[in-house]
């Protein structure tokens, strides 16, 4: 493990040692991969508390995650990725965590990249860091159609948050306490990632995108169908458009 630690300056950094941090791992029927994700996070940085949000799985995801030593919050039925992730942020808020990262339970996000995600937050350059597949780190095979969709969305989101966002649909993120408190109170439903960028920007959070390598999906569903992509694009476009007309008062933490 020493070799890994050498290459991860932010993780070794004494500034991070005392920071209470939690890894939020949303999972829906990820029994084949969830244990490895949990173990990899712990191997990279044992300082993380690992909370798996089981979004109503039917394949023993909960048992696998617990076997690997993670805390598991099991939702009584499937609430969708937005609600699942928000549950994690509420846990982080209620238990006084300073930093939270989101790592998908399907193994697509490589925990080895966590240091890159954390660095801007530890250095207090950002309130939210988004890991992007499209900034040159690693190769990620994206089908043409999806890539086109992401491009379009990236253009729209970039305009709305007044900075270049190359991978607005990425769910590989880190936030500080401000981000935790915000997302615990206000996180979009359904397909939340692109909209979450806008919510964060409108609530005055500093956003930074960093290059990360992502892996291809290892097992399980690739739940993208034509009809669903169509719904995705329409729903997200509508949500982004309407967010232009919403007011976003700053979120303050109740004491």
């Amino acid at each position, binding site marked *: 493990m020493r070799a890994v630690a050498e290459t991860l300056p932010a993780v070794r950094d004494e500034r991070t040692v005392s920071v209470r941090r939690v890894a939020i791992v949303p999972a829906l029927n990820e029994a084949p991969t969830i244990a490895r994700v949990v173990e990899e996070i712990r191997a990279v940085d044992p300082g993380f508390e690992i909370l798996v949000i089981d979004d109503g799985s039917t394949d023993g995801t909960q048992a696998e995650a617990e076997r690997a030593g993670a805390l598991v919050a099991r939702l*009584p039925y499937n609430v969708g990725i937005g609600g699942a992730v928000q549950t994690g942020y509420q846990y982080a808020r209620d238990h006084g965590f300073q930093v939270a990262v989101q790592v998908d339970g399907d193994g697509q996000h490589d925990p080895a990249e966590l240091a890159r995600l954390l660095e801007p937050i530890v250095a207090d350059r950002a309130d939210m860091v988004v890991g992007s597949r499209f900034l040159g780190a690693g190769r990620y095979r994206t089908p043409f159609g999806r890539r086109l969709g992401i491009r379009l969305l990236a253009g729209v989101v970039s305009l709305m948050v007044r900075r270049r966002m190359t991978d607005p649909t990425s769910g590989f993120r880190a936030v500080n306490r401000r981000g935790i408190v915000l997302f615990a109170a206000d996180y979009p439903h*359904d397909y939340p990632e692109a909209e979450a960028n806008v919510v964060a920007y409108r609530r005055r959070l500093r956003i930074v995108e960093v290059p990360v390598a992502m892996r291809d999906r290892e097992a399980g569903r690739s739940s993208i169908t034509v009809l669903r992509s169509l719904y995705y694009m329409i*729903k997200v476009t509508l949500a982004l458009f309407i967010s232009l007309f919403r007011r976003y008062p700053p979120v303050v933490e109740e004491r």
Partner: protein
Amino acid sequence: MTPFRVSVFAAIAAILLLAVIFELIRSRRLQERYALLWVITGLVLLVLAVWRDGLNVIARTVGIAYPPSALFMVVGLFVLVVLLHYSTVISELAERNLMLAQRIALIEQKLKETEAPQNSDSS
């Protein structure tokens, strides 16, 4: 031919409907997911109000002599779809509500058991 006044009235109705939907979403009283069918209904009404030739074609195809009736038929069909959709949504909500009630009842029971285990012995 559709009377011009019918088209104007239908267009105004469609725009009002879309405006109300917009405001409901904006103020977070309506989620996008449940607004989508309404948005489509509003857009179809708007298109058929403005595109008068299209309405005539539809009326002729279906065999309706008076084109405005076709307008009401199409809108009626969409409302039917929306209602059917909501029936499934209500069923899903009822199902989930039941699950929650059952879970809470069992959690409460477990909580009581862990809080005061001696009670069960003394009874």
